[in-house]
């Protein structure tokens, strides 16, 4: 039984106010859609019984109260997208939808632990997670929260965990690859929306990971078992008769949790992680830049700021202290990870570090290239901060200034941009090993490029430095 009949699909297609979420099609129990921009979740006939049971069980309430599951409001059925709807809820909004390939190691690990903790808590209450997709976790106030209220089904004593494989592919494999091989391997998540195939993970992991009981079991032997039973119908039938009592299932989940907990990665040794501490300019310049940034941020309306090239988040904090909700993007996973750890230590929820290469932002992936949206499609900041960033893109990546500023203008109505001229020691370093082909890379060149799309509201030299800070408003 499915939630949508062909007639429903027609009805939904005919209602211009309803836009079905392109990433919500896998579970026949229901789907997410927007009506006039507001996000709703419709529960269909296949899942209504489970849903009512889940709400009545008290588990939903406990998970929501603990901040582990996103809250919701029950809405009148007349708001449904299709006539097949049995119930409609309006989930509490999440400010920004981010994806696992944009998370730091610590964020992915926290999302994994949340998933297992929710599964363990559900199990105690007689429920189980029917999926364990990393895309079902989002960050709210810099903490992970599960967003799929329909992921719960009654636990049937004796049944193994259907989402075990998905958990290993979405969480354990990338965590192990970062912890034991290379942080850049999280890029594999961007290549495949279904996670990292375990045979690939097993092949990429160093041989010695077989000495770790958790990785040996959940990745290496798991991959081998998958290969052995693949496309073998008889053994597939045998698998469906596999039994696992609650005690052993709890032991498995506890072991999985211990394995995840044991995955560690220290953010050092990559390009920029100690950059903020090793800037090429002095204390006076830093103080002035902090002061000016604060002034400029104060002058900008709207709550959402995107700090591009945020490093460990020094200027993100300036924006956050001025009342903005900040996404702190950096290309360097180590810098973003340090920022995340610092934020968790401080207990603040107004900054979320994410990994981004501005010259290669996340594309749309999955079905029709729309299931997981591109970063630029999700971009809705009121202001962009681009401090100590432009020279890296313009010189190291050869991006012309006019293209750079056009991208900023496409993303936000305001931009705070620092121009670092060629006489700055940092730029001299970038140019040291290559021919200077950047005739346009001058203060006048920057003004001209900015002027194409922006009005220059403020232009302020930074004390004791050749750098200039601009406040720009889109025309």
């Amino acid at each position: 039984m499915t939630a949508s009949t062909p007639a429903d699909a027609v009805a939904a297609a005919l209602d211009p106010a309803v836009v079905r979420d392109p990433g919500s099609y896998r579970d026949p129990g229901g789907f997410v859609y927007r009506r006039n921009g507001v996000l709703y979740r419709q529960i269909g006939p296949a899942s209504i019984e489970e849903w009512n049971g889940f709400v009545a069980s008290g588990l939903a309430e406990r998970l929501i109260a603990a901040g582990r599951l996103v809250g919701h409001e029950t809405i009148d059925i007349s708001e449904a997208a299709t006539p097949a709807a049995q119930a409609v809820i309006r989930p509490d909004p999440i400010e920004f939808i981010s994806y696992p390939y944009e998370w730091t190691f610590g964020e992915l690990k926290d999302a994994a632990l949340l998933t297992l903790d929710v599964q363990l808590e559900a199990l105690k209450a007689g429920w189980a997670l029917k999926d364990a997709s990393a895309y079902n976790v989002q960050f709210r106030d810099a903490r992970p929260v599960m967003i799929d209220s329909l992921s719960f089904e009654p636990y049937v004593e004796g049944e193994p965990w259907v989402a075990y494989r998905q958990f290993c592919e979405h969480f354990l494999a990338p965590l192990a690859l970062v912890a034991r091989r290379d942080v850049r391997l999280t890029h594999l998540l961007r290549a495949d929306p279904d996670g990292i195939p375990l045979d690939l993970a097993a092949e990429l992991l160093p041989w010695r990971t077989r000495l770790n009981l958790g990785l040996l079991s959940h990745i290496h032997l798991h991959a081998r078992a998958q290969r052995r039973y693949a496309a073998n119908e008889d053994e597939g039938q045998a698998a469906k008769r596999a039994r696992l009592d609650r005690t052993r299932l709890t032991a498995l989940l506890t072991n999985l949790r211990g394995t995840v907990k044991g995955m560690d990665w220290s953010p050092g040794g990559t390009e920029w992680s100690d950059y903020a501490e090793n800037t090429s300019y002095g204390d006076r310049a830093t103080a002035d830049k902090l002061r000016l940034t604060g002034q400029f941020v104060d002058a900008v309306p709207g709550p959402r700021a995107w700090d591009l090239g945020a490093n460990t988040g020094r200027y993100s904090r300036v924006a956050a202290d001025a009342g903005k909700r900040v996404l702190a993007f950096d290309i360097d996973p180590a810098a973003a990870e340090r920022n995340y750890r610092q934020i968790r230590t401080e207990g603040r929820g107004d900054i979320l570090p994410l990994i981004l290469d501005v010259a290669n932002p996340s594309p749309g992936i999955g079905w029709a290239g729309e299931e997981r949206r591109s970063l630029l499609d999700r971009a809705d900041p009121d202001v962009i901060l681009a401090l100590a960033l432009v020279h890296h893109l313009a010189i190291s990546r050869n991006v012309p200034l006019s293209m750079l500023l056009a991208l900023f203008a496409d993303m936000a109505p305001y931009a705070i941009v620092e121009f670092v001229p060629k006489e700055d020691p940092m730029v001299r370093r970038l140019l040291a090993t290559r021919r200077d082909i950047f005739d346009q890379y001058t203060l006048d060149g920057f003004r001209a490029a900015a002027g194409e799309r922006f009005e220059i509201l403020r232009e302020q030299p930074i004390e004791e430095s050749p750098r200039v800070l601009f406040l720009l408003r889109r025309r």
Partner: protein
Amino acid sequence: MTDLLLAYIDPGSGSLIIQVVIATIVAIPIFFRTQIARVIHAVRGDKETEPTADDRVDAS
């Protein structure tokens, strides 16, 4: 096991079988710990208590 047939994601035959094997192995120490605790409690004449999932989580 009809419920598994309703799962909307593919649990994978190999994944189901290996998880039973792994679960059985990792449950052995827990089983013995429980038995030993039971014996100790019996000797002392304490009231029997089962470790909760939380205890096991914290112990990991």
